[in-house]
Each structure stands twice: as structure tokens, then as C-alpha cells.
């Protein structure tokens, strides 16, 4: 048996900056995960469909544009609708503390803000992935 944790690193929305997403992708790779990177400017539908086709254990969304209150819950719903009921969904980026409770209520398991060490993300995934 050769199980690997598969993570979709996704950039929803219109911001064109993915340095953070790439740093996270690299850290997850070094932690032994298979990381599928979607590239920039993905719609929620594209992200959910990619998650389905890749049968990922984790969807990690990165957003810097401020559109997270709208896009994150939408992606959670679409991913669940596709039947990926136990995929862990996490988010990161420039996200005000005050927005986090609502995102968690919408089904985002954890939100990582600037300054988070990548090891914290790796540890969270290892502990929470089903």
C-alpha cells in the first residue's frame, strides 16, 4: 500500500500573485505530499472539478484579493456537491481576523494568515486529513 496525501493548491479569483501559494506548494512537496497546482485565476467551478478529477484529500485555497468571503464558501459547497465529502478544505492569504469565524462556519477547516510557518500547515494537514 502506497498512500500519499494529495493536495490541490488553488488560486481562486483575480489576484495575479502566487508566490505564497508556490511557497506552500513547495513545503507540502517536501513534507511528502503530492501537490497539484492549478495555476492562477481559477473559478470555483474549475477548482471543484479539478479536486474531483484528482481525488484530493485536501483543497488548499490561497487568495489575496479580498474576495474570500464570497469565493471560499462557494468552493466548499461545490466540492461537497461533487461528492468529496471528506476532503479537508483550508484557506490562506491576506484575510482579516474578523472574517475567519464566518469562513470556518462555512466549512473552511482552518485559515492561515501571513506569517504562518509552513510547518504549521503541514502539521495541520497531517492531523486532520481523513
Amino acid at each position, binding site marked *: *500500500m502506497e498512500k500519499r496525501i494529495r493536495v490541490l493548491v488553488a488560486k481562486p479569483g483575480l489576484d495575479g500573485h502566487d508566490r505564497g501559494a508556490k511557497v506552500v506548494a513547495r513545503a507540502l*512537496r*517536501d513534507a511528502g505530499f503530492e501537490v*497539484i497546482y492549478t*495555476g492562477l485565476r481559477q473559478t470555483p467551478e474549475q477548482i471543484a472539478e479539478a479536486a474531483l478529477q*484528482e481525488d484530493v484529500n485536501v483543497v488548499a485555497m490561497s487568495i489575496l484579493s479580498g474576495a474570500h468571503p464570497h469565493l471560499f464558501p462557494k468552493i466548499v459547497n461545490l466540492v461537497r456537491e461533487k461528492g*468529496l465529502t471528506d476532503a479537508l478544505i483550508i484557506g490562506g492569504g491576506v484575510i482579516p481576523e474578523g472574517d475567519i469565524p464566518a469562513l470556518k462556519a462555512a466549512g473552511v477547516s482552518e485559515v492561515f494568515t501571513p506569517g504562518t510557518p509552513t510547518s504549521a500547515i503541514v502539521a495541520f494537514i497531517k492531523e486532520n486529513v481523513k
Partner: protein
Amino acid sequence: MPKAVHKMDIAQELLNGSRLALSRAITAIENEYDEATDIMKKLYPHTGNAFVLGITGPPGAGKSTLTDKLAKEYRKRGKTVGIVAIDPTSPFSGGAILGDRIRMNALTLDEGVFIRSMGTRGSLGGLSQKTADAVKAMDAFGKDIIFVETVGVGQSEVDIVKAADTTMVVLIPGMGDDIQAIKAGILEIGDVFAINKADHEGADKLNVELNMMLDLDSNMKDWRPPIQKVVANKGEGIIELIATIEEHYAHIKENGQLTQKRTERIKNEMLDILHSGIGSYITKNIVESGQLDEYVKQVKNREIDPYSVVHGIMNRMLKEQI
């Protein structure tokens, strides 16, 4: 992490057209879940219909971009498409960045296309060990054409020929002089050659060199691999390239080579299954049981020689009926 417990009948739902089931089937295959063999048994009768196109070439040659463009053109022609895209697994961490999808985003929402990224997971020939079964799952799902995109290869990763009906080698200008073209390896396996980035300097020179190499090929029988210049990111030369691919496919169908290739593939796959079955029997019964260590002690003391030990083990295995 285990998620081997599935409530759905994966094989049946896959055959009914569930994309989630196809995805879960490939996961089961890749992770060698217990149910993978049962899934494959049920799918097998429904395989053998798809055309499998192998796409190989050095890193950065534009394999993914070209795959994206070819897939779009095939979709226009009403064909359904499966894509298995392979990227390297780190030999150090076991992790991987699978980035082929980045070039194929426009295909994601097309219901006639299914893309799956796979890490090599220790396999060295440019494919993952489970590629062939992933292709079969897509074949049983009903895909008309399945692209298998290898990792960026160097010179000798040629496993793709065994997995594909038609193998396309993608090259780009500026990668070396003409001696590179007469070396053994991936240049020997192309049924079709694509010179990508043909708008870059050196494309004509590469075309000449490739032609020379092909002219010198004394093994060539009745097919001379065509060379097509393309500029994948601009979509130039795609229709002409598909024409050469289709021509090759028609050619091998007509002269019986396709049947021969597929027969050979079945034979190789059966041998692989047999080897891995015997291998796991040995691991379980000889290694993990501690028997091997006992023998090693005896051999070390020169009480017995290794050849007789192995002969004895094999005799017992054959009698035991695995």
C-alpha cells in the same frame, strides 16, 4: 489517512458514467488498495476500445501545452478525451508537484475531458507503475482517446512505447548538436515527431538533423516517422500534427501492428502481475516470517549454499499452491 472504505460500487458506478467513481478507481489503483484488483477485474471486459497516444520529450518541450491543444482539437471533432499526466516524485521526500494541469485549465470544465495527474512514485521509465491501469479505467469509462503524458525525459526513459498505441516525441530547438540525434533512446521510439517552439531559432536545423537521423535508420520498415513543426502556445501546426497521428494509427491498424502491440502489452502486463504476485508471496512468507534471516545465518556459516536454499524455497512454493 486511509480512506479505503468506500460505500459505492466503484466499478459499477464508473461504468454508469460517474466521474467521482473514475477518480476513486484511479486512487484505489495508485494506492494499491485491496479493492483495486476487484475493480480492475470488473472493468477489464470494457477496455480495449480507446486509442492511446503517448506524448514524451524533454522537460520544458511543451508536452502539456501541446496535449491541451490536441485535446481541444479532438473535442471539436466530437471525441471524448482522457489525459494521464505524469510528473516526477521526489526521491527524497516522496512528495511531488504535479503541475501539468496549469496548461490545461480551459479543459477542466469540459465534461468530455478527464485529466488525472500522477507522480512517478519511484518508477524510472518516465511513467508511473500504475499508469497502464489508470489508462484502462479511463478506457472502460468510455474515453475515445487517452493521452499519456510522460515526465520530462532525458535520453533513455522509453516505457511509454509499451503503454501507447502511437508515441509522439516532442522536441525543441537548441538542445544539442547532431550527435545527440544519433544516440540511442527516446529518438528511436517516435512514431511521430513534433518540433515545438518552431518559431524559435534552430527549428530548421533540428528538422534537418532529425531527418538525417531517420534516413540512417536501417530498422525502419514500412513507416517513416513524420516530423511536424508546431508552435503549441499559438496553436500553429496542430491540425497537421493530428493528421500525422491519425495516419500512423490508421497505418498500424491496417498492417496488424496494432493488434501485435496490444497482444505484446497483455503479455507484459500478465508477466508483471505474475512477478508482483510472486514477489509479495516471497515478502510475506519468506522475508517477514524471518525464514530468510535463518537461511542467511546458515549460509554465512557455510553450512549450506544460497543456491540450494533458493531451490528448496521454490520447490516448497510450487507445492503449496499460492
